[in-house]
């Protein structure tokens, strides 16, 4: 087990290094600088700004200096948002994204699994069709379309919710709905098909024939086996939702990290781009890492010391 974890961890560090280097050089390759605008600063001031932020040095020198800084945990100051450290920006804005993301994940798992189970139990009946139509819609409709639609119908027309804001618990409802629709649909389909498979398997038939009660069959056999694919999906989904709420944050005016990321790229705010990329990178890799381990724990067929990494 330890060796498995250690090798996974080592590969994580290597990928992180590649991510940092690639992002750094690609970012420098985009034309523009953090000080551009319709009204340009005078050449003297621009030169001074470039010097103050070390942007006048050769790119490779900037790169080694940056690596040195982050090795010491210093992610620098934002070049656009004056005197704000990148670390502060990330810690200030990750909270809302995390809260929104976690709620969406919980909702997605509960609703998705329930819907999938219903569809499987009522296979080829009205409820099954309804659930599947819903889930096709959920997958097909992009979240930003759904978000605008929800704003229009439930906020503007029905007046139940606020169009934007992130203050009262009620303000979470629309963004959570918009954000969880797609994973709900996916999880529902996943649950349905694996439950159907399980329901038709021999050991369930045996259990039924033996006269085991419904609850026992459901909880001990069907759900437990049927939910396995969902577990493996939750890891990557968590990372996707937390990092992927960019559009939803824009539409509902939530001060999350996704919004910062998009703005930083438009503004060529180099230090913020790097900081958030690294942060996202670590987040995604950790999610991957935990899924791998969870998978190994849940599914005994995966050999921990074997050559899976090979």
């Amino acid at each position, binding site marked *: 087990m330890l060796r498995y974890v250690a090798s996974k961890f080592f590969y994580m560090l290597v990928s992180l290094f590649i991510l940092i280097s690639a992002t750094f050089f690609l970012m420098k390759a*985009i*034309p*523009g600088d953090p*000080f*551009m*605008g*319709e*009204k*340009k*600063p*005078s*050449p*003297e*001031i*621009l030169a*001074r*700004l470039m010097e*103050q*932020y070390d942007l006048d040095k050769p790119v490779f020198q900037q790169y080694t200096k940056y690596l040195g800084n982050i090795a010491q945990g210093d992610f620098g100051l934002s070049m*656009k*948002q*004056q*005197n*704000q450290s990148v670390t*502060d920006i990330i810690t*200030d*804005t990750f909270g*809302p994204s995390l809260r929104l993301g976690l709620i969406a994940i919980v909702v997605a798992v*509960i609703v998705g699994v*329930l*819907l999938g*189970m219903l569809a499987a*139990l009522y296979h080829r009946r009205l*409820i099954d069709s309804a659930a599947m139509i819903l889930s096709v819609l959920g997958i097909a409709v992009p979240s930003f379309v759904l978000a*605008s639609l929800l*704003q*229009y119908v439930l*906020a*503007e027309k029905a*007046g*139940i*919710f*606020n*169009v*934007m*804001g*992130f203050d*009262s*618990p*009620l303000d979470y*409802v629309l963004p959570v709905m918009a954000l969880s629709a797609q994973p709900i649909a996916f999880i529902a389909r996943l649950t349905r098909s694996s439950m159907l498979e399980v329901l038709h398997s021999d050991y369930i038939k045996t259990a039924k024939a033996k006269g085991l009660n419904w*609850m026992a069959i459901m909880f001990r056999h069907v759900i437990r086996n049927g939910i396995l694919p969902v577990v493996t999906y939750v890891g990557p989904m968590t990372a996707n939702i937390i990092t992927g709420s960019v559009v939803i944050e*824009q539409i*509902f*005016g939530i*001060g999350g990290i996704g*919004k*910062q990321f998009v703005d930083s790229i*438009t503004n*060529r705010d180099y230090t913020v781009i790097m900081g958030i990329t690294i942060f996202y990178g670590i987040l995604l890799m950790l999610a991957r890492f935990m899924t791998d381990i969870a998978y190994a724990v849940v599914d005994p067929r995966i050999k921990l010391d074997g050559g899976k990494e090979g």
Partner: protein
Amino acid sequence: MKKHKSLLLLMTLILAIGTALAGCGSNNNEGAGSSGNKPKEQVFRMNLASEPPTLDPGQAQDNNSNTIINAVFEGLTRKGPDGEEVPGVAEKWDISEDGLKYVFTLRNDARWSNGDPVTAKDFEFAWKRVLDPGFAPAPPYAYQLYYIKNAEAYNLGELDDPDQVGVKAVDDHTLEVTLENPTPYFLSLMSFQTYYPLHSSVKDNDKWATKAETIIGNGPFKIASMTKGQKIELAKNDQYWDHQSIKLEKVHMSIVNSSATELSSYRNDELDYAGHPVGNIPTDQLAAVKKQMPDELNIKGISSTYFYIFNTTQEPFDNVNIRKAFSMAIDRQAIVDKITQGGQIPAFGFVPPGIKGEKDEFRKEVPDKYFEENIDEAKKLLDQGMKEKGYTTLPAVTLIHNSDDNHKKIALAIADMWKNNLGVQVQVQNQEWGVFLKNRSALNYQVARSGWGADYNDPMTYIDMWTSGGGNNDTGFKNEEYDKLVKDAYATDDNAKRMELMAQAEKILVEDNQVVMPIYYYSNVSLIKPWMKGINIDFKGDLDFSRAYVE
């Protein structure tokens, strides 16, 4: 088995309905949120399309930052309802006869939000801080202070001694300012953020402008709270000298970069104000808005120009007749009526309306009759230009603009007009903001979109940018006569003569050389709820809500 299955179904239903009910239930207690009524307290709710990059008056350059800074700080003068200078921190001022020396007398009751008195030293400190060559990051707007004697030399490091800069606090209530050249609009600059005073506590705290607690202002409001990327809340500043005139208790600013959300929230009574200058109303909804809320829609011409620039160093626009032909062959009225739809005015000059001339507006004293739209004439000029260049067919032309729906629609319409009226094929290309700016300043384009707004209320803010090699002159245009006119206008203290010189310069720029192709003068389009009174939008389109109130 069946029974259990229905149980599961029931659970799901209860979960779903419960959520919906919970939603309705608690909302009724929310009150102001969405119930279609005006707020019960003196509060003003507006939206910022992007987060202000800084709240330091010495660093700020953009509309979002300025809107907040103008509410939290106050300069020696402030802008009255008609854009005129009214006393701010200064109670009165004397100007020497040669227009070079200003002596401001500060009022006794001006205070910082922590109760400290505002003194002349706070101004001297703030101005010299911006000019200090060692100040990091270097403030791009330092040049706004270059009217002051030796300011430029000190800022550029040619002069080491800050005492030689022409600003001096004679005592706590007297500020003496000496200028480089007579500047008729200097007083109006006193209400510009770079000239605001700063509390001495900022000296030891680099991060003062990033936290609500350390921002000590002297304006009508103070910062109550800031939630990064989400909202900024202001509260009335009781220490403000004119606090009797301030009726609003709170200002709530959300930060959402989506014009659809902004309009939706306005409709849902979550905002009292939507639109320019700090937000946006989607253009494709303007027609509907005009129909549904004609009384709330507020359209005001502002001093900004939307135009295209020609690269005068690249074919085929190194020929003046071809530039003229392109400029004459479009229908500006159609663009304004059908695309922008916000009451913009077709432009035939570069200085927009609203800018002061000698006695009246400059644009009224000097009408923008530099050219006319005329397709036949345009065709002739194009033929003539092609002959001069020896073309049988025009080289391929590409028009670039930065990615934005409106810019795109306008560009496509103009390309279409060129195709129909001149028979030339023009390719339209949209580029990401940074890439676009880089290409434009590197003269790596043929025709490019551009826009320019006033820094101060004088035609010079539009004229001096086109001098040879000027930092914002992205056209390659070089003209000695033009440079001389600008230089002469700077040197004279005779306002009539200045206006005359600038009018001549504008004629050279537009009529004689057609370096720019003016398209329209901007308008400020906003929605204001019927209960919000006293909101003012000035000639530049700056928003002033300090004297607003809920009725």
